[in-house]
C-alpha cells in the first residue's frame, strides 16, 4: 500500500510540474494588453518579494521580507518597489498580507471585496461596496479563515480557501476578479509547509474598458 501511495504522490508531483511549465509559458506570452471582447483569464506565478536571509521559528522559514512585491494586472507584470508611491501597481503581497493600491496603501483608487463563489460564475463586478486599506484593517482581511486563506497550526501550511474570489478595483479604477490558488513557490500539489512560502500564484480576469463586465 505504501508503494501504491508513493506512486500516486509521484504522479501528482509530475502532474504539478507539467501544469507549472504550462503556466510559465502563459507568462512568457507577449505582455501587451489586448482590448478583446472575450476577456482572457491570466495566470500569474510566484509573485513574492525576495525573502530575508534570517529564519523564523518554529517553521524554519525565512523571516518577513522588507518590501512587498507589486503587480500590475493590465501589463501582467511585476512593478519595482521603488514605484510603490505611484498608481503603476494594483496589488502588492508580502507573506499573507495583500495590499490594494488605495487608502492607506497607495495613491490609487484601489479597493477589494472578498466574495464566496466560483471564479467562472462571477461575471460582473459590483460598482460599489469596495473596501479600502486602512491603518487598522486591510481591504482583503488577513488572518486564518477571515479572508483568503486558512492556516493549519499543526502543519503550519497556509492554504488559499477554495471558493474565495477577490473582486478588485484597480489603481486606475478598472475592475478585475482574482483567485489565489497557491501560496508556495511553484504551486506544489500538496504543500508540507517547508516549501518556500509567500509566492503567490493567482488567476485573474482584468477588464480594461472600465466596465464592470468580467465575462
Amino acid at each position: 500500500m505504501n508503494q501504491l501511495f508513493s506512486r500516486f504522490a509521484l504522479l501528482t508531483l509530475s502532474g504539478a510540474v507539467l501544469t507549472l511549465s504550462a503556466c510559465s509559458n502563459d507568462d512568457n506570452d507577449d505582455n501587451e494588453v489586448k482590448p478583446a471582447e472575450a476577456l482572457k483569464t491570466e495566470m500569474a506565478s510566484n509573485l513574492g518579494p525576495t525573502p530575508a536571509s534570517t529564519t523564523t521559528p518554529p517553521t524554519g522559514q525565512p523571516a518577513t521580507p522588507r518590501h512587498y512585491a507589486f503587480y500590475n494586472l493590465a501589463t501582467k507584470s511585476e512593478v519595482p518597489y521603488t514605484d510603490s508611491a505611484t498608481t503603476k501597481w494594483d496589488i502588492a503581497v508580502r507573506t499573507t498580507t495583500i495590499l490594494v493600491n488605495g487608502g492607506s496603501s497607495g495613491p490609487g483608487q484601489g479597493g477589494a471585496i472578498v466574495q464566496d463563489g466560483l471564479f467562472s460564475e462571477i461575471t460582473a463586478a459590483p460598482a460599489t461596496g469596495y473596501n479600502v486599506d486602512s491603518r487598522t484593517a486591510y481591504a482583503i482581511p488577513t488572518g486564518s479563515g477571515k479572508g483568503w486563506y486558512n492556516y493549519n497550526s499543526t502543519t503550519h501550511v497556509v492554504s488559499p480557501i477554495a471558493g474565495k474570489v477577490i473582486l478588485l478595483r484597480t489603481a486606475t479604477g478598472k475592475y478585475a476578479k482574482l483567485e489565489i490558488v497557491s501560496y508556495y513557490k511553484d504551486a506544489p500539489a500538496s504543500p508540507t509547509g517547508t516549501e518556500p512560502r509567500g509566492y503567490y500564484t493567482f488567476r485573474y480576469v482584468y477588464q480594461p474598458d472600465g466596465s464592470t463586465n468580467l465575462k
Partner: protein
Amino acid sequence: MHRFSSSAFLLVLVVSPGLGIAQQRPAPADTSTQHLRLREVVVTATRTEKALTEVPIPVTVVSRQQIQAMGAVRLTEVLGEQTGLNVVADHGRGVQMQGLNPEYTLILVDGEPLIGRTAGTLELSRVAVGNIERVEVVKGPASALWGSEALAGVVNIITQKPQHGTRGEVRLRYGANRTADVGGTFNYRHNQLGLTVFGNRYSSAGYTLQPASGQATVPPFTNYTGQSRLSYQLDDKTTFSVSGRYFIEDQASNLPITTEGGQVAQVRLKARQQESSLNPSVTRCFSDKLFGTLRFYHAGYRTKEDYTYTADGTPYDASYFHQTFTRPEAQLDWRLHPKHTLTVGTGYLWETVEATRYDQRQQMRSAYCYLQDDWSPLPGLNLVAGVRYDGHSQYQGQLSPKLSGRYQLRPWLAVRASAGRGFRAPDFRQLYLNFSNPAVGYSVFGTHQVREKVAQLAAQGQLALDPATGQPLINAPLLEQASSLTAESSRAYNAGLQLDPTPKLRLTANLFHNDLRDLIETAAVAQKTNGQSVYSYRNVSRAYTQGLETDARYLLSAHLTLSAGYQYLVAKDRNVVTQLKNGSIYRRDPETLETTRLKVADYGGLFNRSRHMANVKLFYDNQATGWSGSVRGVYRGRYGFQDRNGNLILDTGNEYVAGYWLWNVSAAKTFRQRYTLQAGLDNVLNYTDPAYLSTVPGRLYYASLTVALGPR
C-alpha cells in the same frame, strides 16, 4: 438483587489466577462457556447489580480471564481490542466510543471518576490492569445516572474485592523497548475483616518512530501504582469499607526548540504526574427491601513540567496543573416488589483547579439528585426509566432523562431499545483559561472572565479600533454567547437484538444515533492591535454520529472460542452538511488548480473516525493441560487525518490515513497450578505508520511469569 451469584462468580475468578484449575470444577469448562452460562452481573448500567443478559442497554464486559489471556498490562491495551472502541491519541490516549471523542466518555474506578483531563482526554494508560476484576463498558448516554461526561458512555473499572482466605499473586513481565512490569496482589478475608492490596511498577524505554524529528515518540518513563481496599463488617447488615489509590509517573525527554534568533537549542523536559484518591463508604441492608449506600470520594491530580536548556541547565519554561474533586453521595435502593426496584440518589460535588494558565485557584460546585425505576410489568419485559438533575455554580442546570426497555420475545431472541439525553459540562479550560501566546500574540480567555479581560484590554489600548467609529473591535454577539456558555448535550437512541440461536452461538446487534448540540468551539471575540485575536469559547456546532455495532461469539469446541465484532460508523458536522447543501464549500484540484463546488457526497465526515472497524479473536483454554492462548486481530478502517486543501473538511483521498490490521498472539502454560509462564507478540506483522500513527510502535514481544501464593 443478585448478590450471591455475583460473589460466587468473583470467587471462581479469584481462585483461578493462572487461567484456572481443572480439579476445582468437574467439567472442563472454558472461559467462554462461563460467559454464556453464568449470570454475569454488571453494576454500571443501572447502579444496582443486574444480570448482564438482562440489562436493557448495550453493555460490554471484559473479564479478568480475558485480560490475562491477552497478556495486557494497561487499560488502553484492553479497551483497544473491544468492538466499537477505538483508542485515539489527543493529549493522551483515550477511547472513542460510538464515534465520539474521549472527553465524552466517563471513566470510573469502582463507580468513582478518575480525574486529570488536562485537555479533555483522560490518559487511560495510567490504569494498571493487574487488580481488575472486570471492565464494564456502557454505550449510549448515561447522564441520567452518572451526570456530566457520560455522553457517549461509561467505562467502569471494577477492582477485586476481598475474598475469603489469604492468597496473593506476584507477576513479572518483560518485553521489547525494555518494558518491565512488576506487581502483585494480596487478598485477605477472615470473619469481619477484608483487605486487598495491589502494587505495580511499570517502566519503559519508550520508542522513537521518527528519528529525524530529534524527539522520542514516547520518551522513557517509570510509574508506580498502589491501590488498596479495606472492608469491615460492622454487623450482619452494615459494612464499612475504604479504598485508596495512588499513582505517580516520571518521564524525561529531550526536545529541540528553535529560538527567536533561528538557532536550534536542546531542551530537557522533566514531567511528573501524580494522582491519588480516598473513598470510604458504608452500605446497610435496612431490610430485605431497602438497601442504602453512603460514599465519600476525594481525588487529587497534579502535574509538573520543567523545561531546562540541556547545555547549561537554565530554566526555559515550567508549568503545573493541580485539580481536586470531592464528592459525598448517598443512594437508596428500594425493592417495592421482586420485580420493581426504585433507586434514588443525591450528591454534592466540589472541584478546584489551580494551574499555570489560570489566574488563581478556581472552584466549581454542583449538587445533583437522580431517580430510577426498574420495573418488570410482564414476564420477559423490563423497563428502566431514570432522570437526573445537576445544578451547577457556573452554568445552566441540566436535566437528563432516559428510558430503556428490553423484551424477551422468544427464549432465543430479545430486543432492546433506549432513548436518553447526555451532557458534558464545560471544562476548567473553557471556563477559566487565561493564556496569551508570547510568540504569536493571541489571547485565550475562559468564558467566565472573558468580558472582564476584554474590557481590561480595551482600557489598556490593546484592542484594535474600528476606523469608522473609533470604538474597539469587539464582536458583541460572540462575546455575549461566550459569557452564557452552557453544557454540550446529546439526544441518543439505541436499538438492538440479542440472539442465541444455539447454545454455542450468541449474536448481538445495536443501532445507534447520537444527535449532538451546543458543541463548544473557540470564537474570536475581539481584535488586538497586533493583528491577532482574543479568543474565547461558545456553543456552536451540531453534529451527529450513527451506525451499527455487531458482535458474534461461537464455541468451536470445549476449549476454543471464536469471536468477531464489527462497527459501521457515520459521523458528520451538521453545519458542514448544511453548507454543502447550500453549495458554499469548494475545493481546488491541486494539479489543475481549478476550483469546484463540493457536493454532499464528497464529505467524508468528522476527522479521525473510521467508517469500518472490526476484530476477530480466537481464544484457546484447556485447563486440564494448563495450556491457553489467543490470536487477536483488530482492524481500523481508513480515517480522515487532516485537511490538506484548505476547505477545512474531509473530502479528498490524501486527507485520509490508510486502514490497517494489528495482529496479536499470546500463549500461556500453567505448571502445578501455581506457576504460569506466558509469552506473546503484539503487532506480529510489525505494522507502523510513523507520520500518522504515534500509538503503534511496531512489533513487541514479551514474556511473563505469574506465581500464585497461598493454599492451592
